[in-house]
Protein backbone atom coordinates (compact mmCIF):
# COMPACT_ATOMS: atom_id res chain seq x y z
CA UNK A 1 0.00 0.00 0.00
CA UNK A 2 1.31 3.42 -0.90
CA UNK A 3 2.34 5.60 1.99
CA UNK A 4 1.40 9.21 1.63
CA UNK A 5 1.70 12.30 3.73
CA UNK A 6 0.69 15.86 3.02
CA UNK A 7 1.37 19.24 4.47
CA UNK A 8 4.26 18.22 6.68
CA UNK A 9 5.95 21.25 8.19
CA UNK A 10 8.12 22.04 11.15
CA UNK A 11 8.87 25.22 12.98
CA UNK A 12 11.57 25.74 15.55
CA UNK A 13 11.74 28.86 17.72
CA UNK A 14 9.59 30.78 15.27
CA UNK A 15 11.64 29.88 12.20
CA UNK A 16 10.22 27.53 9.60
CA UNK A 17 12.76 24.78 9.07
CA UNK A 18 10.51 22.61 6.95
CA UNK A 19 8.06 24.19 4.51
CA UNK A 20 4.82 22.30 3.86
CA UNK A 21 5.75 19.14 2.02
CA UNK A 22 3.69 16.32 0.62
CA UNK A 23 4.98 13.06 -0.74
CA UNK A 24 3.99 9.50 -1.41
CA UNK A 25 6.11 6.40 -1.24
CA UNK A 26 5.41 3.22 -3.17
CA UNK A 27 6.08 -0.18 -1.62
CA UNK A 28 9.65 -1.42 -2.23
CA UNK A 29 10.72 2.07 -3.32
CA UNK A 30 14.35 3.07 -2.87
CA UNK A 31 14.45 6.79 -2.32
CA UNK A 32 17.41 9.05 -1.58
CA UNK A 33 16.81 12.30 0.29
CA UNK A 34 19.79 14.49 -0.47
CA UNK A 35 20.82 18.07 0.18
CA UNK A 36 23.48 20.17 1.87
CA UNK A 37 23.73 20.16 5.65
CA UNK A 38 21.07 22.28 7.29
CA UNK A 39 18.67 21.86 4.39
CA UNK A 40 16.08 20.05 6.52
CA UNK A 41 16.61 16.45 5.40
CA UNK A 42 16.58 14.96 8.88
CA UNK A 43 13.72 17.21 9.89
CA UNK A 44 11.66 15.93 6.98
CA UNK A 45 12.60 12.36 7.91
CA UNK A 46 11.46 12.86 11.48
CA UNK A 47 8.24 14.61 10.50
CA UNK A 48 7.51 11.85 7.99
CA UNK A 49 7.99 9.11 10.59
CA UNK A 50 5.90 10.88 13.20
CA UNK A 51 3.07 11.53 10.73
CA UNK A 52 3.01 7.94 9.47
CA UNK A 53 2.98 6.70 13.06
CA UNK A 54 -0.09 8.84 13.63
CA UNK A 55 -1.67 7.14 10.60
CA UNK A 56 -1.01 3.82 12.33
CA UNK A 57 1.60 2.68 9.84
CA UNK A 58 4.70 0.75 10.82
CA UNK A 59 7.73 2.86 10.04
CA UNK A 60 11.22 2.38 11.39
CA UNK A 61 14.04 4.82 11.88
CA UNK A 62 17.78 4.24 11.95
CA UNK A 63 19.60 7.28 13.35
CA UNK A 64 22.96 8.45 12.10
CA UNK A 65 25.05 6.84 14.80
CA UNK A 66 24.39 3.89 17.13
CA UNK A 67 25.04 6.29 20.02
CA UNK A 68 21.78 7.96 19.11
CA UNK A 69 19.86 4.70 19.05
CA UNK A 70 21.04 2.63 22.00
CA UNK A 71 21.12 3.22 25.74
CA UNK A 72 24.66 2.48 26.97
CA UNK A 73 23.31 1.29 30.33
CA UNK A 74 21.03 -1.39 28.91
CA UNK A 75 21.89 -4.76 27.46
CA UNK A 76 21.31 -5.62 23.82
CA UNK A 77 18.72 -8.18 24.88
CA UNK A 78 16.85 -5.49 26.78
CA UNK A 79 16.80 -3.28 23.68
CA UNK A 80 15.52 -6.11 21.54
CA UNK A 81 12.73 -7.12 23.92
CA UNK A 82 11.77 -3.50 24.40
CA UNK A 83 11.54 -2.93 20.65
CA UNK A 84 9.33 -6.00 20.27
CA UNK A 85 7.10 -4.93 23.14
CA UNK A 86 6.81 -1.41 21.71
CA UNK A 87 5.27 -2.88 18.56
CA UNK A 88 2.99 -5.05 20.67
CA UNK A 89 4.69 -8.25 19.50
CA UNK A 90 5.56 -11.24 21.68
CA UNK A 91 9.18 -12.35 21.80
CA UNK A 92 9.93 -14.40 18.72
CA UNK A 93 13.28 -16.21 18.78
CA UNK A 94 13.22 -17.49 15.17
CA UNK A 95 12.51 -14.00 13.83
CA UNK A 96 15.36 -12.66 15.91
CA UNK A 97 17.67 -15.37 14.59
CA UNK A 98 16.63 -14.68 11.01
CA UNK A 99 17.26 -10.94 11.28
CA UNK A 100 20.54 -11.44 13.11
CA UNK A 101 21.92 -13.83 10.56
CA UNK A 102 20.68 -11.66 7.69
CA UNK A 103 22.70 -8.76 9.10
CA UNK A 104 25.66 -10.88 10.15
CA UNK A 105 25.44 -10.33 13.90
CA UNK A 106 24.29 -13.80 14.96
CA UNK A 107 27.50 -14.23 16.96
CA UNK A 108 26.88 -11.10 19.06
CA UNK A 109 26.56 -11.54 22.82
CA UNK A 110 23.15 -10.15 23.76
CA UNK A 111 24.03 -9.98 27.45
CA UNK A 112 26.52 -7.23 26.69
CA UNK A 113 25.70 -3.57 26.58
CA UNK A 114 26.14 -1.59 23.35
CA UNK A 115 29.70 -0.56 24.12
CA UNK A 116 30.63 -4.22 24.40
CA UNK A 117 29.96 -4.50 20.65
CA UNK A 118 31.88 -2.88 17.82
CA UNK A 119 30.23 0.16 16.27
CA UNK A 120 29.58 -1.64 13.04
CA UNK A 121 27.78 -4.42 14.88
CA UNK A 122 25.84 -1.89 16.93
CA UNK A 123 24.67 -0.19 13.75
CA UNK A 124 23.58 -3.51 12.26
CA UNK A 125 21.78 -4.36 15.49
CA UNK A 126 19.89 -1.07 15.19
CA UNK A 127 18.99 -1.91 11.60
CA UNK A 128 17.84 -5.40 12.66
CA UNK A 129 15.76 -3.84 15.41
CA UNK A 130 14.19 -1.51 12.85
CA UNK A 131 13.14 -4.49 10.76
CA UNK A 132 11.37 -6.35 13.59
CA UNK A 133 7.80 -5.51 12.67
CA UNK A 134 8.32 -5.86 8.89
CA UNK A 135 7.91 -2.10 8.54
CA UNK A 136 6.40 -0.53 5.45
CA UNK A 137 9.21 2.01 5.40
CA UNK A 138 12.67 2.21 6.89
CA UNK A 139 14.31 5.62 7.13
CA UNK A 140 18.11 5.61 7.34
CA UNK A 141 19.58 8.92 8.48
CA UNK A 142 23.19 9.27 7.26
CA UNK A 143 23.82 5.59 7.92
CA UNK A 144 27.43 5.65 6.77
CA UNK A 145 28.88 8.85 8.15
CA UNK A 146 29.58 7.64 11.68
CA UNK A 147 31.16 4.38 10.54
CA UNK A 148 34.33 3.29 8.83
CA UNK A 149 33.80 2.92 5.08
CA UNK A 150 34.38 -0.85 5.07
CA UNK A 151 31.89 -1.40 7.89
CA UNK A 152 29.39 1.06 6.40
CA UNK A 153 29.52 -0.59 2.99
CA UNK A 154 29.02 -4.03 4.55
CA UNK A 155 26.00 -2.84 6.52
CA UNK A 156 24.41 -1.26 3.47
CA UNK A 157 25.01 -4.36 1.37
CA UNK A 158 23.43 -6.62 3.99
CA UNK A 159 20.42 -4.36 4.29
CA UNK A 160 20.04 -4.19 0.51
CA UNK A 161 20.12 -7.95 0.29
CA UNK A 162 17.56 -8.32 3.07
CA UNK A 163 15.16 -5.80 1.56
CA UNK A 164 15.28 -7.15 -1.99
CA UNK A 165 12.00 -8.85 -2.84
CA UNK A 166 10.25 -7.38 0.17
CA UNK A 167 7.56 -4.72 0.36
CA UNK A 168 9.54 -2.48 2.72
CA UNK A 169 10.41 0.85 1.17
CA UNK A 170 13.62 2.63 2.08
CA UNK A 171 14.51 6.29 2.41
CA UNK A 172 18.20 7.06 2.59
CA UNK A 173 18.98 10.49 3.99
CA UNK A 174 22.43 11.72 3.01
CA UNK A 175 24.40 14.78 2.00
CA UNK A 176 26.37 12.66 -0.42
CA UNK A 177 24.79 12.29 -3.85
CA UNK A 178 27.41 9.77 -4.92
CA UNK A 179 26.43 7.48 -2.04
CA UNK A 180 22.73 7.86 -2.77
CA UNK A 181 23.29 7.19 -6.47
CA UNK A 182 24.80 3.79 -5.61
CA UNK A 183 21.83 2.72 -3.52
CA UNK A 184 18.56 4.25 -4.67
CA UNK A 185 16.46 4.56 -7.80
CA UNK A 186 14.72 7.81 -6.99
CA UNK A 187 16.12 11.03 -5.58
CA UNK A 188 14.56 13.93 -3.74
CA UNK A 189 16.61 17.09 -3.32
CA UNK A 190 16.14 19.39 -0.36
CA UNK A 191 17.31 22.94 -0.03
CA UNK A 192 16.50 25.48 2.67
CA UNK A 193 13.68 23.44 4.15
CA UNK A 194 11.95 22.83 0.82
CA UNK A 195 11.72 19.75 -1.33
CA UNK A 196 12.96 21.33 -4.56
CA UNK A 197 13.35 18.47 -6.99
CA UNK A 198 12.27 14.85 -7.40
CA UNK A 199 13.47 12.63 -10.20
CA UNK A 200 14.85 9.24 -10.98
CA UNK A 201 18.49 8.83 -10.05
CA UNK A 202 19.81 8.84 -13.60
CA UNK A 203 17.72 11.84 -14.60
CA UNK A 204 18.88 13.84 -11.64
CA UNK A 205 22.52 12.96 -12.16
CA UNK A 206 22.45 13.80 -15.84
CA UNK A 207 19.97 16.63 -16.11
CA UNK A 208 19.58 18.36 -12.76
CA UNK A 209 17.13 21.24 -13.00
CA UNK A 210 17.39 23.27 -9.81
CA UNK A 211 20.43 25.07 -8.49
CA UNK A 212 20.73 22.79 -5.46
CA UNK A 213 20.57 19.65 -7.58
CA UNK A 214 23.12 21.07 -10.01
CA UNK A 215 25.54 21.79 -7.17
CA UNK A 216 25.12 18.28 -5.76
CA UNK A 217 25.51 16.72 -9.14
CA UNK A 218 28.56 18.76 -10.09
CA UNK A 219 30.33 17.96 -6.81
CA UNK A 220 29.44 14.33 -6.52
CA UNK A 221 32.78 12.99 -7.64
CA UNK A 222 36.19 13.45 -6.09
CA UNK A 223 38.14 12.63 -9.18
CA UNK A 224 39.65 15.05 -11.62
CA UNK A 225 38.31 18.49 -11.21
CA UNK A 226 39.59 21.21 -13.45
CA UNK A 227 40.47 24.04 -11.14
Amino acid at each position, binding site marked *: MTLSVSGLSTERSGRIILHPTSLSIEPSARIGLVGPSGSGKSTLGHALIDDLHRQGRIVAHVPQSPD*EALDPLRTMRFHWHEAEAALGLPHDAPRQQQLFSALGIAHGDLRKRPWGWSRGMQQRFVIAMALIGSPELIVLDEPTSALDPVVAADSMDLLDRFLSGRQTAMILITHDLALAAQRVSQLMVMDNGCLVEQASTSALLNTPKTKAAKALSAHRNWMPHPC
Partner: protein
Amino acid sequence: MIRSILSLLLRALVVVSGASIVTFILLWNAPGDPALAIAMARYHQVVSADVLDQVRNEVGLDAGFWSAFKAWIGPLLAGDFGKSTVTDREVWPELVTAMSYTFPLAMLALVCGMCVALPLAILATKHPGSVLDRAAIGMASLGAAIPPYWLGLLLILLFAVYLDWLPAMGALSTTHMVLPALTLGLGVTASLTRIIRSGILDAREQAFLPAFRRRCVLSRNIGRDHIAPHATIPVITVFGLELAFLLEGLVMVEVIFGRPGLGSFLVNAIEARDFPKVQAVVLLTALVFVVINLIIDVIYQVIDPRIGEHDA
Protein backbone atom coordinates in the same frame (compact mmCIF):
# COMPACT_ATOMS: atom_id res chain seq x y z
CA MET B 1 36.61 -9.25 40.36
CA ILE B 2 38.54 -10.42 43.44
CA ARG B 3 41.25 -7.92 42.64
CA SER B 4 38.82 -5.04 42.48
CA ILE B 5 37.21 -6.04 45.77
CA LEU B 6 40.64 -6.28 47.39
CA SER B 7 41.64 -2.88 46.06
CA LEU B 8 38.39 -1.38 47.37
CA LEU B 9 39.02 -2.88 50.82
CA LEU B 10 42.60 -1.66 50.79
CA ARG B 11 41.42 1.84 49.96
CA ALA B 12 38.88 1.63 52.79
CA LEU B 13 41.64 0.61 55.19
CA VAL B 14 43.80 3.55 54.12
CA VAL B 15 40.95 6.03 54.62
CA VAL B 16 39.96 4.73 58.05
CA SER B 17 43.47 4.46 59.47
CA GLY B 18 44.52 7.76 57.89
CA ALA B 19 41.56 9.59 59.38
CA SER B 20 42.15 8.25 62.89
CA ILE B 21 45.90 8.84 62.86
CA VAL B 22 45.51 12.40 61.58
CA THR B 23 42.91 13.09 64.28
CA PHE B 24 45.20 11.71 66.93
CA ILE B 25 48.01 14.00 65.81
CA LEU B 26 45.68 17.01 65.66
CA LEU B 27 44.30 16.36 69.13
CA TRP B 28 47.74 15.89 70.59
CA ASN B 29 48.96 19.17 69.14
CA ALA B 30 45.81 21.21 69.82
CA PRO B 31 46.48 24.39 71.82
CA GLY B 32 45.74 24.40 75.54
CA ASP B 33 46.68 21.98 78.30
CA PRO B 34 44.91 18.64 77.91
CA ALA B 35 45.56 17.75 81.53
CA LEU B 36 43.71 20.86 82.65
CA ALA B 37 40.74 20.05 80.43
CA ILE B 38 40.58 16.47 81.69
CA ALA B 39 40.89 17.52 85.33
CA MET B 40 38.17 20.15 84.87
CA ALA B 41 35.89 17.52 83.38
CA ARG B 42 36.63 15.14 86.22
CA TYR B 43 36.38 17.36 89.24
CA HIS B 44 34.40 20.35 87.94
CA GLN B 45 36.65 22.78 89.80
CA VAL B 46 40.01 24.44 89.57
CA VAL B 47 42.65 21.98 90.69
CA SER B 48 46.17 22.30 92.04
CA ALA B 49 49.34 21.65 90.10
CA ASP B 50 49.85 18.34 91.91
CA VAL B 51 46.54 17.01 90.72
CA LEU B 52 47.35 18.11 87.18
CA ASP B 53 50.61 16.22 87.30
CA GLN B 54 48.80 13.18 88.60
CA VAL B 55 46.30 13.39 85.70
CA ARG B 56 49.17 13.80 83.27
CA ASN B 57 50.78 10.69 84.63
CA GLU B 58 47.59 8.62 84.68
CA VAL B 59 46.61 9.48 81.12
CA GLY B 60 50.13 9.13 79.85
CA LEU B 61 50.46 12.72 78.67
CA ASP B 62 53.93 13.07 80.14
CA ALA B 63 55.29 9.99 78.38
CA GLY B 64 55.48 11.76 75.04
CA PHE B 65 53.66 11.43 71.73
CA TRP B 66 54.96 8.06 70.60
CA SER B 67 54.23 6.13 73.75
CA ALA B 68 50.75 7.69 73.89
CA PHE B 69 50.24 6.74 70.27
CA LYS B 70 51.33 3.19 70.96
CA ALA B 71 49.16 2.99 74.06
CA TRP B 72 46.20 4.03 71.92
CA ILE B 73 46.74 2.06 68.76
CA GLY B 74 47.82 -1.21 70.38
CA PRO B 75 44.51 -2.11 72.02
CA LEU B 76 42.60 -0.57 69.12
CA LEU B 77 44.06 -3.10 66.69
CA ALA B 78 42.70 -5.78 69.01
CA GLY B 79 39.27 -4.14 68.82
CA ASP B 80 39.48 -2.36 72.14
CA PHE B 81 38.43 1.29 72.08
CA GLY B 82 39.94 1.86 75.51
CA LYS B 83 38.65 3.67 78.57
CA SER B 84 37.51 7.23 78.95
CA THR B 85 40.24 9.41 80.42
CA VAL B 86 37.60 11.30 82.39
CA THR B 87 35.31 8.64 83.81
CA ASP B 88 37.59 5.62 83.41
CA ARG B 89 34.66 3.69 81.95
CA GLU B 90 34.84 1.59 78.78
CA VAL B 91 34.20 3.72 75.67
CA TRP B 92 32.51 1.04 73.58
CA PRO B 93 29.24 0.60 75.61
CA GLU B 94 28.81 4.36 75.83
CA LEU B 95 29.41 4.66 72.11
CA VAL B 96 26.75 2.03 71.43
CA THR B 97 24.27 3.95 73.59
CA ALA B 98 25.05 7.18 71.73
CA MET B 99 24.62 5.44 68.39
CA SER B 100 21.26 4.07 69.43
CA TYR B 101 20.06 7.67 69.63
CA THR B 102 21.79 8.94 66.54
CA PHE B 103 21.18 6.30 63.89
CA PRO B 104 17.38 6.22 64.17
CA LEU B 105 17.36 10.02 63.90
CA ALA B 106 19.64 10.03 60.86
CA MET B 107 17.65 7.26 59.19
CA LEU B 108 14.35 9.00 59.89
CA ALA B 109 15.66 12.25 58.42
CA LEU B 110 17.06 10.45 55.37
CA VAL B 111 13.98 8.35 54.72
CA CYS B 112 11.60 11.28 55.19
CA GLY B 113 13.84 13.44 53.03
CA MET B 114 13.90 10.82 50.28
CA CYS B 115 10.13 10.24 50.50
CA VAL B 116 9.47 13.94 49.98
CA ALA B 117 12.32 14.75 47.59
CA LEU B 118 11.81 11.97 45.04
CA PRO B 119 8.11 12.62 44.25
CA LEU B 120 8.66 16.36 44.45
CA ALA B 121 11.55 16.22 41.99
CA ILE B 122 9.63 13.94 39.63
CA LEU B 123 6.57 16.19 39.74
CA ALA B 124 8.67 19.29 39.31
CA THR B 125 10.45 17.93 36.24
CA LYS B 126 7.16 16.97 34.53
CA HIS B 127 6.93 20.58 33.42
CA PRO B 128 10.23 22.40 33.86
CA GLY B 129 9.63 26.06 34.57
CA SER B 130 6.09 25.52 35.87
CA VAL B 131 4.82 26.93 39.17
CA LEU B 132 5.43 23.58 40.88
CA ASP B 133 8.96 23.42 39.52
CA ARG B 134 9.72 26.94 40.70
CA ALA B 135 8.23 26.15 44.10
CA ALA B 136 10.43 23.07 44.37
CA ILE B 137 13.53 25.04 43.43
CA GLY B 138 12.56 27.76 45.90
CA MET B 139 12.09 25.24 48.67
CA ALA B 140 15.36 23.59 47.86
CA SER B 141 17.27 26.88 47.94
CA LEU B 142 15.57 27.89 51.16
CA GLY B 143 16.34 24.56 52.79
CA ALA B 144 19.95 24.81 51.74
CA ALA B 145 20.23 28.40 52.95
CA ILE B 146 18.78 27.92 56.45
CA PRO B 147 21.38 26.61 58.88
CA PRO B 148 20.12 23.77 61.11
CA TYR B 149 20.95 25.51 64.39
CA TRP B 150 18.73 28.44 63.46
CA LEU B 151 15.91 26.32 62.11
CA GLY B 152 16.10 24.12 65.21
CA LEU B 153 15.68 27.09 67.50
CA LEU B 154 12.79 28.43 65.41
CA LEU B 155 11.03 25.07 65.56
CA ILE B 156 11.56 24.88 69.33
CA LEU B 157 10.09 28.37 69.68
CA LEU B 158 7.07 27.55 67.55
CA PHE B 159 6.15 23.99 68.51
CA ALA B 160 7.50 23.73 72.03
CA VAL B 161 7.22 27.22 73.44
CA TYR B 162 4.19 28.86 71.76
CA LEU B 163 2.08 25.88 70.74
CA ASP B 164 3.38 23.45 73.37
CA TRP B 165 2.66 20.49 71.11
CA LEU B 166 6.01 18.77 71.22
CA PRO B 167 8.83 18.43 73.73
CA ALA B 168 11.92 20.51 72.99
CA MET B 169 14.77 18.81 74.75
CA GLY B 170 15.85 15.29 75.59
CA ALA B 171 15.23 11.90 74.07
CA LEU B 172 12.79 10.17 76.36
CA SER B 173 10.12 9.17 73.82
CA THR B 174 9.62 9.00 70.10
CA THR B 175 7.85 12.37 70.16
CA HIS B 176 11.20 13.81 71.19
CA MET B 177 12.52 12.78 67.82
CA VAL B 178 10.01 14.81 65.77
CA LEU B 179 11.59 18.25 66.01
CA PRO B 180 15.21 17.17 65.47
CA ALA B 181 14.11 14.97 62.57
CA LEU B 182 12.21 17.90 61.03
CA THR B 183 15.22 20.18 61.42
CA LEU B 184 17.55 17.72 59.83
CA GLY B 185 14.99 16.50 57.29
CA LEU B 186 14.43 19.91 55.73
CA GLY B 187 18.10 20.23 54.84
CA VAL B 188 18.19 16.68 53.49
CA THR B 189 15.00 17.16 51.48
CA ALA B 190 16.30 20.39 50.03
CA SER B 191 19.59 19.00 48.81
CA LEU B 192 18.05 15.74 47.58
CA THR B 193 15.34 17.58 45.65
CA ARG B 194 17.95 19.71 43.97
CA ILE B 195 20.17 16.77 43.03
CA ILE B 196 17.36 14.53 41.82
CA ARG B 197 15.77 17.32 39.82
CA SER B 198 18.95 18.19 37.96
CA GLY B 199 19.74 14.49 37.57
CA ILE B 200 16.43 13.87 35.85
CA LEU B 201 16.70 16.97 33.67
CA ASP B 202 20.20 16.01 32.54
CA ALA B 203 19.18 12.41 31.90
CA ARG B 204 16.35 13.65 29.67
CA GLU B 205 18.85 15.33 27.38
CA GLN B 206 20.44 12.00 26.40
CA ALA B 207 20.92 11.94 22.64
CA PHE B 208 19.41 8.48 22.21
CA LEU B 209 16.00 9.25 23.73
CA PRO B 210 14.32 10.59 20.55
CA ALA B 211 15.13 7.29 18.84
CA PHE B 212 13.35 5.38 21.58
CA ARG B 213 10.28 7.58 21.20
CA ARG B 214 10.37 7.01 17.44
CA ARG B 215 10.54 3.29 18.16
CA CYS B 216 7.15 3.77 19.87
CA VAL B 217 8.43 2.86 23.33
CA LEU B 218 5.90 4.23 25.83
CA SER B 219 7.13 7.36 27.57
CA ARG B 220 6.33 5.73 30.90
CA ASN B 221 8.75 2.93 30.08
CA ILE B 222 11.37 5.35 28.78
CA GLY B 223 11.22 7.16 32.10
CA ARG B 224 11.53 3.98 34.08
CA ASP B 225 14.06 2.08 32.01
CA HIS B 226 16.27 4.77 30.53
CA ILE B 227 15.92 8.12 32.29
CA ALA B 228 15.88 6.72 35.82
CA PRO B 229 19.17 4.77 35.58
CA HIS B 230 20.93 7.71 33.94
CA ALA B 231 19.59 10.06 36.61
CA THR B 232 20.69 7.72 39.40
CA ILE B 233 24.39 8.03 38.69
CA PRO B 234 24.80 11.74 39.45
CA VAL B 235 22.29 11.46 42.28
CA ILE B 236 24.23 8.83 44.19
CA THR B 237 27.52 10.56 43.44
CA VAL B 238 26.36 13.83 44.95
CA PHE B 239 24.54 11.97 47.71
CA GLY B 240 27.80 10.43 48.89
CA LEU B 241 29.31 13.90 49.10
CA GLU B 242 26.26 15.44 50.80
CA LEU B 243 26.52 12.86 53.55
CA ALA B 244 29.28 14.94 55.12
CA PHE B 245 26.85 17.81 55.51
CA LEU B 246 24.26 15.51 57.00
CA LEU B 247 26.71 14.40 59.69
CA GLU B 248 27.69 18.00 60.38
CA GLY B 249 24.03 18.94 60.79
CA LEU B 250 23.50 15.92 63.01
CA VAL B 251 26.10 17.06 65.52
CA MET B 252 24.53 20.52 65.75
CA VAL B 253 20.98 19.26 65.97
CA GLU B 254 21.81 16.85 68.77
CA VAL B 255 23.51 19.54 70.80
CA ILE B 256 20.62 21.98 70.29
CA PHE B 257 17.95 19.47 71.25
CA GLY B 258 20.00 18.01 74.08
CA ARG B 259 19.98 14.49 72.69
CA PRO B 260 22.59 12.17 74.15
CA GLY B 261 23.65 10.96 70.70
CA LEU B 262 27.00 10.88 68.91
CA GLY B 263 26.99 14.65 68.43
CA SER B 264 26.78 15.47 72.11
CA PHE B 265 29.13 12.57 72.82
CA LEU B 266 31.70 14.07 70.47
CA VAL B 267 31.34 17.68 71.66
CA ASN B 268 31.69 16.68 75.31
CA ALA B 269 34.64 14.46 74.51
CA ILE B 270 36.44 17.22 72.65
CA GLU B 271 35.87 19.72 75.42
CA ALA B 272 37.28 17.28 77.98
CA ARG B 273 40.11 16.16 75.69
CA ASP B 274 38.81 12.65 76.15
CA PHE B 275 41.09 11.16 73.52
CA PRO B 276 39.67 7.63 73.33
CA LYS B 277 36.14 8.88 72.91
CA VAL B 278 37.02 11.37 70.17
CA GLN B 279 39.02 8.72 68.42
CA ALA B 280 36.16 6.28 68.63
CA VAL B 281 33.74 8.73 66.99
CA VAL B 282 36.21 9.62 64.25
CA LEU B 283 36.82 5.97 63.52
CA LEU B 284 33.13 5.26 63.41
CA THR B 285 32.42 8.23 61.11
CA ALA B 286 35.22 7.22 58.78
CA LEU B 287 33.81 3.69 58.71
CA VAL B 288 30.34 4.96 57.84
CA PHE B 289 31.80 7.02 55.01
CA VAL B 290 33.80 4.14 53.69
CA VAL B 291 30.88 1.73 53.82
CA ILE B 292 28.57 4.16 52.05
CA ASN B 293 31.14 4.83 49.38
CA LEU B 294 31.62 1.10 48.94
CA ILE B 295 27.87 0.73 48.45
CA ILE B 296 27.94 3.58 45.92
CA ASP B 297 30.78 1.87 44.05
CA VAL B 298 28.77 -1.34 43.93
CA ILE B 299 25.73 0.53 42.59
CA TYR B 300 27.94 2.10 39.91
CA GLN B 301 29.16 -1.34 38.93
CA VAL B 302 25.60 -2.55 38.55
CA ILE B 303 24.30 0.46 36.62
CA ASP B 304 27.32 1.29 34.51
CA PRO B 305 30.37 -1.00 34.66
CA ARG B 306 32.33 1.53 32.61
CA ILE B 307 32.65 3.84 35.62
CA GLY B 308 36.00 3.39 37.32
CA GLU B 309 37.14 0.99 34.61
CA HIS B 310 40.46 2.77 34.25
CA ASP B 311 40.98 3.26 37.95
CA ALA B 312 44.28 2.28 39.43
